């Protein structure tokens, strides 16, 4: 899609060269400056975080990433627990949010009665406007007790003794931990993914779907063979918008994740995330190494996000090669 867009704009530029060449050139410069500025800003942020965290990286080396001890008294810092907690909670969030969001988007574009589409769409967009601290408080006061009383005992009774997944669901049901945080995060990212997915789905040219209907396709076949293949790169973009939000979410996670620097296989146990650790500890980080370690943690969030995004792009490339380009 990007390539065709670029060609289009090149075409437009060449036809207008005589009339508004100066204005066009200025416009090009301004847009280019805006785009490059973002890149510059990103680079500068990453660099200054790396610079701020250099003491931590120099002191601990690779152990800063692989170490699981976080001990301010003895000045030993390892980021494994927050990295693990961030990745696990975000993964749970996506596992919940992606199917639900795509379902919402599909319902709104194809299935829902026409009059109900706009109100539901607006309601979903408004969900995205709820401050994250509200989700956090709801999570702590209402959802966590519910998880502790109803969901987690069931999970540890029925799944806790199973062979492979057992360790994931063992431990006391306290309601605060990675599973609860992941579910709350999932609810928080649904509006982001659903809104973009709805826009993309409604951009699928009607003739494509109509031909599928004419060939006798069911709704499911239209979704899986026409809509999703046609929109997959935009949908993956939407998923990554949600993932970015989940990786960096701070307040809501702080409330329900437990803020404990403990490495545990069980999803029912408390853990920590990078953003929550920084928010909790930055104000009272009074040694040079402690502060540097927290900034280094921020840098690692950059790196983690970058790696995850790269993997996604590579996946997208592979899918495109498999299917061949459809547009």
């Amino acid at each position, binding site marked *: 899609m990007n390539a065709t867009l670029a060609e289009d704009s090149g075409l437009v530029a060449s036809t207008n060269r005589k009339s508004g060449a100066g204005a066009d050139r200025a416009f090009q410069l301004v847009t280019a400056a805006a785009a490059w500025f973002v890149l510059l800003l990103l680079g500068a942020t990453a660099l200054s975080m790396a610079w701020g965290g250099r003491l931590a990286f120099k002191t601990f080396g690779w152990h800063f990433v692989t170490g699981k001890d976080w001990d*301010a*008294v003895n000045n030993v810092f390892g980021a494994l627990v927050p990295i693990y907690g961030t990745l696990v909670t975000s993964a749970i969030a996506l596992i919940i949010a992606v199917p639900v969001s795509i379902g919402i988007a599909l319902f709104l574009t194809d299935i829902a009665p026409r009059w109900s589409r706009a109100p539901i769409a607006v309601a979903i967009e408004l969900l995205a406007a709820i401050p994250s601290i509200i989700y956090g408080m709801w999570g702590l006061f209402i959802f*966590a007790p519910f998880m502790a009383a109803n969901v987690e005992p069931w999970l540890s009774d029925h799944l806790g003794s199973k062979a492979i997944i057992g360790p994931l669901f063992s431990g006391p049901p306290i309601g605060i931990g990675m599973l609860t945080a992941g579910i709350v995060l999932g609810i928080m990212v649904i509006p982001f993914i659903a809104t973009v997915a709805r826009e993309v789905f409604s951009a699928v040219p009607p003739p494509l779907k109509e031909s599928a209907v004419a060939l006798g396709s069911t709704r499911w076949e239209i979704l899986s063979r026409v809509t999703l293949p046609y929109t997959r790169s935009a949908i993956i973009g939407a998923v990554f918008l949600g993932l970015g939000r989940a990786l960096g979410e701070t307040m809501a996670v702080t409330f329900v994740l437990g803020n404990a620097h403990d490495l545990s296989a069980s999803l029912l146990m408390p853990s920590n995330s990078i953003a929550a650790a920084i928010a*909790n*500890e930055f*104000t*009272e*980080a009074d040694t040079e190494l402690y502060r540097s370690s927290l900034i280094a943690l921020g840098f690692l969030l950059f790196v983690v996000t970058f790696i995850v995004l790269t993997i996604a792009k590579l996946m997208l490339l592979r899918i495109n090669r498999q299917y061949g380009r459809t547009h």
Partner: protein
Amino acid sequence: MNKMFLALPALALLAACNSKAGNESSNAESGVQVTGAGSTFVYPVLSAWAADHKNQGGAAINYQSIGSGGGIAQVKAGTVDFGATDQPLASDDLAQNNLAQFPVVVGGIVPVVNIPGIEAGKLKLTGPLLADIYQGKIKNWNDPAIVKINPGLNLPNVAISTVHRSDGSGTTFNFTHYLSQVSPTWKSGPGEGKTVAWTGGVGGKGNEGVAGYVKQLPNSLGYVEYAYVVQNKMSYALLQNAAGNFVAPSADSFAAAAATADWKNAKDFNLVMTNAAGANAYPIAASTFILLPKQPKDRARSSAAIAFFKYALEHGQDQAKKLDYVPLPDPLVQQIESYIGANIK
């Protein structure tokens, strides 16, 4: 949380009184803006004092409760007129930065529990027991070591969920300082600090975070400032003091700890009151310390700050009591005033 609400009217008063300053004797101080930063623990009482002080013609006090670490950093950098910290600085650190230090108010840190069926003040705990529970050595409420000192109580056979502070805090410093004094394994293990490496458990942000988790999680154990116990009607445990008595947290037991602490021999008041010796002394009493530069850049603002703390020490006691803090004993106040006179030019 209630403390915050109490502080709000005080702030409003501060703002309202900006215009009618200087109706009495201390005209020289009015119009001066004193800024301070630090401990969140002392914020409610400090802002109440500031409002009263301003009402009586004193200087306006602008205090930012950004945390002890931030307060120390800012007063060292000279960006504020005074700092407030829950963890006293050592004398050489003070000398290096040319700072004077003295306590202004006393409070206490209280173990709170949420065990269904057990009321406030019924459960007895000792310091070593607390250390073992927080280290994960004692896992269940009906552990023989707990049952032994609580013969009449029906303790359930369930796991203890420990709750600690997730942010660095003076509360944690005083709590772990106490545990280090009474438990050798704690001292050689997690040690003392504003944040330590906890074994298991859940971390809550701020006193309100810990209080919230303890109320949410059945069979949990946490530690919070005394005011949160009173305002949230939490179920506190009795704690055994150095003299062997089990004492409840109260203004009297904190005052007993402050009175028996050896302030006379503490250079620059560098003293943490945990594990005080008195028969009725509460074992985890804590105080907040004010840091003032010895040679201030702005003399007018510094003397206004000193006047404010003199006012607070001499006349702020009732206000402190109302907000569930404990005033300093009289001999200590006299010692502080002569210290200020001798140290700040």
